[in-house]
């Protein structure tokens, strides 16, 4: 059951996006997401959608995976669109009944909202889909490294190291949960029946050993790290140097065109939202 969680999953590959500099990907994802919300008419919205589609296609990740990632959003999308559609009273009225009123404003907002949420989810998951956890933390560490000037001397490195270790131990802990769950089931533990309090209590035989084991992992790992001369971020070098390559400049150019396009279309055409 635990294995189905796919937060921040990474799908190894060899596309332009996979090979791009993680720092650049972080920045570009952020800028793109901002502009998903900047667009204010159907022309710029179409550009946003087109840009997202091109980005998804250039990742060369199977559409099946992409759609699976959107599935959890489905209910939310349907629910909020229904609310918008039936209760937004702006614009011309198109259909009026006792309970619901459909207006042009309602339809427009719904379309914008649906497209924006889909693009938001796609663009942000594209970042994790194409960037390994290590690269991601590495990118964050280096992007934030200017903060060191403001007295956050070791903070940035510590944060990045914590993220790396957390990512490293997720599979180990998932394995452990599986093992402990099976072991307690073998002693007749029942996780499937009873009220909510009873069920929560039934989880104690899993959580306590998990917690104890995590402390043991942490303690032993800290020894192993010390033995390998770890002493915080100071004086550390990195094997992998990040350097912007030609493809990164191409991506940057594409982003400029996208940003410029959205701004231009916003100016040329009238805002509808």
């Amino acid at each position, binding site marked *: 059951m635990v294995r189905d969680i796919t937060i921040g999953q990474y799908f190894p590959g060899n596309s332009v996006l996979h090979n791009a500099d993680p720092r650049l990907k972080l920045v570009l994802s952020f800028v793109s997401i901002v502009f998903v919300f900047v667009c204010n008419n159907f022309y710029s919205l179409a550009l946003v959608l087109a840009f997202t589609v091109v980005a998804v296609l250039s990742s060369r990740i199977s559409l099946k995976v992409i759609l699976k990632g959107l599935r959890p959003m489905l209910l939310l999308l349907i629910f909020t669109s229904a609310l918008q559609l039936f209760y937004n009273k702006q614009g011309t009225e198109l259909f009026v009944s006792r309970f619901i009123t459909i207006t042009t404003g309602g339809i427009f907002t719904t379309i914008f909202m649906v497209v924006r949420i889909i693009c938001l989810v796609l663009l942000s998951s594209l970042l994790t889909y194409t960037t390994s956890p290590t690269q991601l933390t590495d990118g964050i560490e280096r992007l934030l490294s200017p903060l060191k000037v403001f007295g956050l001397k070791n903070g940035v490195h510590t944060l990045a190291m914590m993220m790396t270790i957390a990512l490293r131990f997720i599979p180990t802990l998932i394995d452990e949960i599986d093992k402990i769950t099976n072991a307690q089931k073998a002693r007749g533990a029942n996780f499937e029946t009873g009220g909510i309090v009873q069920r929560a209590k039934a989880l104690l035989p899993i959580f306590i050993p998990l917690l104890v084991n995590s402390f*043991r992992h942490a303690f032993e790992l800290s020894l192993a*790290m010390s033995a390998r001369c770890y002493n915080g971020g100071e004086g550390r*070098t990195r*094997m992998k140097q990040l350097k912007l390559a030609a493809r990164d400049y191409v991506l940057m150019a594409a982003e400029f065109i996208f940003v410029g396009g959205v701004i231009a279309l916003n100016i040329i055409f009238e805002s509808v939202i």
Partner: protein
Amino acid sequence: MRGTDTKENLIPIIEFKNACFSYDSEDMGAELSPAVKDINLTIYRGEFVAVLGHNGSGKSTIAKMTNAILRPTSGKVFVEGMDTSDEELEIKIRQLVGLVFQNPDNQIVSTIVEEDVAFGPENLGVPPAEIRQRVDEALKTVGMFEYRFHEPHKLSGGQKQRVAIAGILAMKTDCIVLDEPTAMLDPVGRREVIGTIKRLNKELGITVVLVTHFMDEAVLADRIIVMNDGTIVKDGTPAEVFSDVKTIKESGLELPIGANMAERLKKSGINLGKGILTAEDFATAFSQFVVNNR
């Protein structure tokens, strides 16, 4: 204590001088590191030393004292003449003596094999190009180069331990101390790890200290140290150590299979000779005995 005639040519790398260690409180490490007392021990360059003892005999404590993970509560431990109690020297000492632990899962830091191997040299501030070179070399030495892009959690126990060894090699240590590296492995993993350790010692001349409770691993060493109740009770070549059946039994250990069978035959009046340790030794000696007496 050690009766070899080449002693003058040997250069000490680790020296325990009346070293003691004990916890004054019962915290987390107490179970992992039982007390040791009055340890006098010199490990020489290029040696392959096995430290044998039952669980709780203090053998792991000694391992952790070799690179200042634990510091003696009294007495001294020196690494190449550097006092491990001196915190200033900590990094230098740990660079010379690397430590591999028992649980393969709890010593891998990164989510990619090659990045994990790079962890040590990165901490030491080695320039990037050189780290790359060291990492590739270390991974080739332990036979894990083709796994360099893999995720550690998908490797077998033996492979994880080899990655851990590569992580130490990449720091260019002179001495590797392994604290029961095979205790949690299956027979295949054990063979892989022991094979790797032997190669490091024989081919690269790296000093190896192998802490273990497996007799068949200990017999591979040049020298065996037997621990019991926090003290060293025996120090000598495998043949010397395993001929002292009484001490071995008292220390909660067993004889290796060859020695065990030779001992049994001796009781029936058949003497196959000295220095029989492994199954191979025994088979050779026995067939020789048959030929000689036929």
